[in-house]
């Protein structure tokens, strides 16, 4: 399956989903003018990834999927879609795959850190919180 790569813009984040290495990254700023138009293809890609890659893995040993979220800002409409993306990963986990969520936040940015805590709490799933200096 081909990777999904979306270059960042002034209003939208960078997306890089690498199925070969099982690393999935969304980073930057999210305030798309058309939030549905931006996020729906990403969710569709994840559904196809499930059908074309995960469902075909019949081995006992499943995969470790790493989701790196390094957001600098996301508006409320984007938060709904970020949650939907995470819910897809929760489904992957329920099929026996291991999921690691790394939530990056700029040192001192309590808003992004607390947003991550809230989303983690909603999912009932622990994230790794990693601070960075820009």
């Amino acid at each position, binding site marked *: 399956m081909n990777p999904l790569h979306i270059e960042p813009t002034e209003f939208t984040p960078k997306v890089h989903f690498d199925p070969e290495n099982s690393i999935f990254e969304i980073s930057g700023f999210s305030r798309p003018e058309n939030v549905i138009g931006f996020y729906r293809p990403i969710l569709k890609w994840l559904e196809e990834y499930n059908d074309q890659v995960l469902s075909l893995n019949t081995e006992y040993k499943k995969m470790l999927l790493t989701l790196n979220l390094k957001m600098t800002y996301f508006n409320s409409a984007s938060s*709904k879609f970020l949650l939907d993306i995470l819910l897809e990963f929760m489904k992957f986990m329920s099929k026996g795959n291991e999921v690691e969520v790394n939530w990056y936040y700029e040192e001192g940015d309590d*808003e992004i850190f607390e947003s991550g805590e809230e989303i983690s709490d909603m999912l009932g799933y622990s994230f790794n919180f990693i601070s960075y200096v820009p």
Partner: protein
Amino acid sequence: MVQKENILAHFGPLSYEEIGFLLNRMSAFVDKQGMSITTKKKVYSAMVESLENIYKHQDIISSNTDHQPRFTLYLDDKEFSLFASNSLLSHKVPPLQEKLEKVNSLNKEGLKELYKLTILSGDVSPKGGAGLGIINIAKVSESKIIYKFEEINNEYSYFTLNVHITR
């Protein structure tokens, strides 16, 4: 007398690019003042949600120039004060007022819980709103949201929101 500085002002229809322009000007101002990243993110968040609300509802602007979209941001020695106004169909006033009263009745934990319930249950509307904007504004505001509705005519009202964020 406390000096109140007008940092930003916008009057009239708003484009998506202009929202970005206003945000960049606020960010540059906050950085220049040496304020914390958390303060900046709070003001940023309240601005995005209120400006996007104006942007989404300006298709129903009354021809009356008194009721055009309006946005202003002030700063005094204690806090930022943000005003955002737009016209809306009067039948949308009661549910919006109910939502504002609801968020104003909740503390931080209650707002988190309402956010959680809304995001897990609500669908995103065709305009992209997830019903979360007002809750987000209440979360970043240190005090209750102040608001008023003025009747323009039989069909439209003019909504003004005022939010305070500690500097």
